[in-house]
């Protein structure tokens, strides 16, 4: 631990860090722009200047950049020397030459890093009297608003978008003080991670476009710690609300999971929560099929009368909280409860749970995956099925670069130098998939195989690892890179709807384990609580009641079926749904948005969204995490767990009716099986107080609280009271250094932007002072996961293809697809084929193909992919048009002669017409 001196103060600092990090770690306010904890240093903005002295006698010193200067024993610096403060002020004054004074109308205002730094350096009056440079802005799609005039040329956007996230279509153009960051021509940003530009940009060049449509200042937002429900990765998010609307979603730092970044589905996919298709009131179906709105109590009473002493069953949901699923299972009885998976997902989830419970491999967090130096991906297009993981994998492949840097003595934060040194040298990553994946560009090898063959590939690699031999070069290479690695990582998952692939991946991990080479094994699952639900139903039962169709087949006669947040159409065949509707005299459903299942029900209960309720989700990492309500549900919506608790109470349920609070539900659930015992530790309980007070959801500057509804009623409403969590709908209280699971937003004096996060971290880029949110609940026995044997090959008739699900970050996920911007990006449903098949069928991109699966014919738009496994075609998974298509089934294809090609392929809702592309030329 070297000692350095800053303004005479001795600091013990960590070996290998730079002076900027050392200062920030010491709690000093050293301004910066271009440095980013996840992206390192390039020395471009020159803002983090301080004076370095040769020795104690040196009084003049020289300016150095904190971010580019490694700590060395005995080094002496000054932050406060006049030449340092003057220089930092001059830097801001230079940046202000061209920066417009549009802060009042800027979407960044109030959380602008540039504002903070300007105040911090003390710059006030400009001396520059010349004209400001101006730029044209570009249309960048529905998510990101572009305002180039605000740019301070810190290069963070380009470095994030291109270097960190692998995006290709945004970069620096021109030179000198005309540098421009944008696209070659206007158009939708192609990266699935474009939204992070909003948080990476230190000013208002890239802002959240949907947020701007119903904008509020950061300080006026009410926020709560939350978990993204967009997929199973479990990214931590901080949604913000005002006027009863969910305004935006920001990243909430979790050292192990999402770090500083979210995917665009997570950031922009919550618009459905403000949708008009939300239910406000419970409804009872009238004989004519329409619904009559009823109040909560009436709904509860009605439901209770259908449930109490009746033959009932319940269908859970992989997108509902563990608590809600648990309550439903207890209410209907474990024997009458099915998880609510589809058949294939049920099978795979069973396999995954079995594997995770016994494997010798570890189930890594994203942080741990970023340390992998060899990766084998079987069957997953990770960018589309677990997007944030893919962003992590883009960092993993850079370990080769860090290794080279280490050999040369370059610290890992020397970003540009390391990229120059390593160029395109990457750690190996082999992707075995049926078609293109969005990580192909950084893979050392891509292998295109049909689902069964991907599974076989896994087994073959396992065999070679165990000493077997094969002629297959790719298999040998995979075995070789994994065996040669320090931290090998195997990724697979459920997205191909093929349990064999998961088994193949597990086989590889186990084979590595037997070679005393412990592997990381990460299995992507479909939904935010798929794993939690699978664990819930896995407890102790011999037959695992997982799929909806199981219930359909066994229940010939039911009094009442209760469906929790599950649109059966997405997870069961029409035949099974008909069977269920016929079997059940009454159906009670609760959900967030209108859907076909609600329409099939006799009583519908309006459920609160994740932003209006609390619950626990178990991510694919096995990390149980708690989300808290950002605001109270409007009208007569209730969180599902409350509906179910009230139902249990009304039915005088033996055990459940004794529960009153959420915490009691958690405790009961925790007690229900050994695996769940730590659920009580996921987040502090409702009686937790910090300095005697609850944690405020509102900033200390929250304005207009007493008057914000004056347009509706001049009577000042009482602030809602949160009886279920340690958080308050209030600005009173402290939001500092709390348990990581309880931090609703970040703010620190002088640091109004998200950069204030560093004040909450134990050290720069380290875990939060309050630890890392979430509890990993699966402890593997380490005995090794047993594998079923290899799958049998299917025989294809000529002109038949295997149907492969193609997941899309925008469009495949049920809830976010109801958000306008996501729907726009999702585009129409498609059938994905290779160039050769396209030629054979006489179609090109944009034509139509009739896909015949059994008795079903669907016309879909053709999308041409660059690599497709033999005899495979893909379909847009999760799109409403393709719900009837089944992964793995055999289909025939024929050109749709009636098809009308879409006139324009770009859907640009707010693209200005008549303007030229906005690229800047010198």
């Amino acid at each position, binding site marked *: 631990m070297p000692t350095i001196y800053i303004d005479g103060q001795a600091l013990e600092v960590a070996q290998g860090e730079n002076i900027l990090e050392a200062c920030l770690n010491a709690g000093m306010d050293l301004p910066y722009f271009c440095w980013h904890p996840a992206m390192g240093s*390039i*020395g*471009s*903005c*020159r*803002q983090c*200047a301080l004076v370095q002295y040769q020795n104690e006698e040196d009084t003049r010193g*020289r*300016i*150095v950049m904190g971010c*580019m200067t490694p700590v060395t024993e005995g080094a002496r610096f000054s932050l406060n020397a006049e*030449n340092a403060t*003057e*220089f930092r002020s*001059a*830097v801001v004054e*230079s*940046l202000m*030459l*061209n920066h417009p004074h549009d802060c009042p109308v800027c979407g960044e205002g109030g959380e602008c890093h540039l504002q903070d730094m300007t105040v911090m350096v003390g710059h006030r009056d400009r*001396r*520059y*009297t*010349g004209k400001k440079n101006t730029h044209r802005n570009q249309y960048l799609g529905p998510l990101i608003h572009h305002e180039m005039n605000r740019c*301070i*040329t810190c*290069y963070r956007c380009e470095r994030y978008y291109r270097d960190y996230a692998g995006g290709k279509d945004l970069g*620096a153009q*021109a*030179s*000198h*003080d*005309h*540098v421009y960051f944008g696209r070659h021509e206007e158009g939708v940003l192609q990266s699935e991670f474009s939204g992070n530009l909003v948080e990476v940009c230190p000013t208002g060049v890239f802002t959240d476009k949907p947020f701007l449509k119903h904008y509020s200042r950061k300080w006026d937002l009410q926020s709560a710690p939350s978990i993204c429900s967009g997929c199973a990765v479990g990214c931590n998010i901080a949604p913000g609300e005002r006027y009863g609307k969910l305004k935006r979603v920001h990243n909430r730092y979790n050292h192990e999971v999402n770090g500083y970044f979210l995917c665009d589905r997570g950031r922009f996919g919550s618009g459905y929560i403000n949708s008009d298709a939300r239910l406000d009131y419970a409804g009872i179906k009238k004989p004519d099929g329409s619904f009559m709105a009823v109040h909560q109590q009436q709904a509860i009473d009605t439901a209770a009368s259908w449930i109490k002493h009746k033959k009932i069953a319940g269908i859970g949901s992989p997108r509902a909280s563990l608590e809600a699923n648990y309550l439903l299972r207890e209410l209907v009885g474990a024997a009458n409860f099915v998880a609510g998976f589809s058949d294939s997902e049920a099978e795979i989830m069973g396999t995954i749970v079995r594997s995770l419970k016994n494997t010798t491999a570890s189930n890594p967090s994203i942080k741990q995956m970023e340390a992998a130096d060899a990766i084998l991906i079987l069957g997953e297009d990770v960018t589309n099925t677990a997007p944030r993981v893919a962003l992590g994998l883009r960092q993993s492949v850079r370990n080769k670069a860090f290794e*080279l840097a280490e050999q*040369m003595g*370059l610290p890992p934060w*020397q970003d*540009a*130098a390391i990229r*120059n*040194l*390593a*160029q395109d*040298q990457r750690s190996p990553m082999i992707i075995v998939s049926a078609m293109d994946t969005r990580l192909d560009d950084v893979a050392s090898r891509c292998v295109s195989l049909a689902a069964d063959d991907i599974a076989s590939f896994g087994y073959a690699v396992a065999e070679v690892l165990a000493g077997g031999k094969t002629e297959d070069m790719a298999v040998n290479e995979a075995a070789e890179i994994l065996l040669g690695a320090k931290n090998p990582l195997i990724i697979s998952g459920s997205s191909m709807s093929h349990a064999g692939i998961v088994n193949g991946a597990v086989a590889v991990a186990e084979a590595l384990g037997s070679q005393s080479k412990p592997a990381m094994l990460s299995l992507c699952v479909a939904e935010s609580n798929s794993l939690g639900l699978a664990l819930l139903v896995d407890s102790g039962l011999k037959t695992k009641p997982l799929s909806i169709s199981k219930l359909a087949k066994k229940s010939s006669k039911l009094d009442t079926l209760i469906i929790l947040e599950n649109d059966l159409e997405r997870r069961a065949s029409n035949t099974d749904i008909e069977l269920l509707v016929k079997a059940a005299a009454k159906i009670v459903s609760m959900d967030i948005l209108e859907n076909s299942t609600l329409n099939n029900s006799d009583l519908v209960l309006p459920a609160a969204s994740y932003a209006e309720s609390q619950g626990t989700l178990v991510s694919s990492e096995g990390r149980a995490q708690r989300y808290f309500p950002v605001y109270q549900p409007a009208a007569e919506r209730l969180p599902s767990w409350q509906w179910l608790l009230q139902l249990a109470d009304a039915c005088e349920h033996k055990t459940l009716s004794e529960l009153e609070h959420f915490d009691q539900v958690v405790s009961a659930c925790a007690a229900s099986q050994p695996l769940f015992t730590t659920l009580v530790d996921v987040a502090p309980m409702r009686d937790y107080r910090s300095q005697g007070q609850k944690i405020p959801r509102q900033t200390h500057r929250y304005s207009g609280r007493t008057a914000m509804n004056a347009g509706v009623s001049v009577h000042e409403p009482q602030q809602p009271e949160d009886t279920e969590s340690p958080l308050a709908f209030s600005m009173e209280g402290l939001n500092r250094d709390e348990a990581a699971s309880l931090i609703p937003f970040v703010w620190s004096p002088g640091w109004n932007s998200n950069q204030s996060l560093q004040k909450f971290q134990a050290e720069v880029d380290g875990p939060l002072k309050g630890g890392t949110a979430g509890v990993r609940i699966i402890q593997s026995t380490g005995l090794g996961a047993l594998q079923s044997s290899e799958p049998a090959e299917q025989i294809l008739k000529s002109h038949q293809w295997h149907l492969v699900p193609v997941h899309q970050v925008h469009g495949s996920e049920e809830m976010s697809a109801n958000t306008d911007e996501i729907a726009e990006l999702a585009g129409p449903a498609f059938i994905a084929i290779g160039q050769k098949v396209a030629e054979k069928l006489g179609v090109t991109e944009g034509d139509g193909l009739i896909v015949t699966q059994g008795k079903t014919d669907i016309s879909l738009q053709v999308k041409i992919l660059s690599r497709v496994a033999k005899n495979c075609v893909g379909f847009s998974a999760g799109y409403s048009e393709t719900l009837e298509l089944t992964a793995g089934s055999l289909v025939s294809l024929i050109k749709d002669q009636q098809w009308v090609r879409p006139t324009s392929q770009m859907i640009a809702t707010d693209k200005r017409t008549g303007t030229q592309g906005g690229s800047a030329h010198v």
Partner: protein
Amino acid sequence: MEKVLTRNIGADLQPTDLKAYEANGGYQGLRKALAELSPKDCLDVISGANLRGRGGAGFPTGMKWSFVPMGDKCTPGHKYLVCNADEMEPGAFKDRLLMECDPHQLIEGMILSAYTIDADISYIFIRGEYVVAIQRLRDALAECYAAGYLGDNILGSGFSLNMYIHPSAGRYICGEETALINALEGKRANPRAKPPFPQVSGLWGRPTIVNNVETLCNIPHIIDRGADWFKTLGVGEDSGTKMFGVSGRVKNPGCWELPMGTPIRHILEDRAGGMQDGLQLKGFLPGGGSTDFLTPDHLDLAMDYNVIGKAGSRMGTGTMIILDDQTCPVGMVLNLIRFFAHESCGFCTPCRDGLPWTRQVLEDIESGRGRAEDLDTLAYQVSYIGAMGNTHCALAPGAMEPLQSALKYFRDDFDRHISGGSCPYHSHTRQGA
């Protein structure tokens, strides 16, 4: 004085072809090195000769080369030798002459340098505007490949080298060696942070040496005739000869090879013929547009790196720009700052945004809109932009050199612009915005 670098350059400025070059002792140094000297021997000769880089910074060439990992210390892969022929310093015009008139001298120097550092690929990074030099170098390269001086197994020595010409797409910053490397990689020519130095991680992450044309042209002679001979060439502290040039309103502007340490007065008066009739010397930039002004008081200084350095300027490229008494010093500095502001790569703040700010203040003063406090602002900018380390590379500190010395020596002129509300010089120098 013995002509070394220009011995093949006649008054007609025609190129020396391979035959003529060989006839005058050309490729003897190369033959000698390949036959008798190891790379280490060559490095020792160059180090012993005390050859200092002729591109402007004057860094000892032998020392620069000594940082290249050799033999087992180098990871397997290519090493590169790059000739920096991106002559773009305002007022510099020496490399053009060397390349146009004696391309083989440069090529031989590059082969020897590549041999010394064990590079197998070399590039000539040359200004795109130098179309004549590019063509003559191309012709010379073809001759060399045909004669076995380039390609595989050169002269049967086992040493192989390929050489390519990269005509630049034009940016002053490409003269900075790490920016040049980025340009060679087909990227935006932003300079790189050092360390790591190019000697260990340069072109495509591999060990790379970048040397100026004139530096490389010295190599064959030093290898052929030895370090001691080279040291005798200088008349001052430094070794060898140097290409010195004079431009501006003198009687006989031009470029001459003279001993290192030649007094400025000799260059200006005997070679350049003194000032044009009716003009007085007011000041001069001794080594191109990014060096500090010197004044008539400095005429008797020797053109040596340290001597000029002690006088408050830099020898730079050794090509002087003369300011006469009827040319506006504010206008001259403005011209230079405009150049530097435009040629900033846009990477770091003080250069990208600071130089345009300086330009704007100077435009105000030159056009008569200046205010008294503008001089304070200029002084502030000099301390903000002008110190090495404040910026990412040396461009902006270099840009500040003429300004800071103009403020020192020609303060009256700035004051007269401000107090008089207009430029007191001849109208053709008016550059008001």
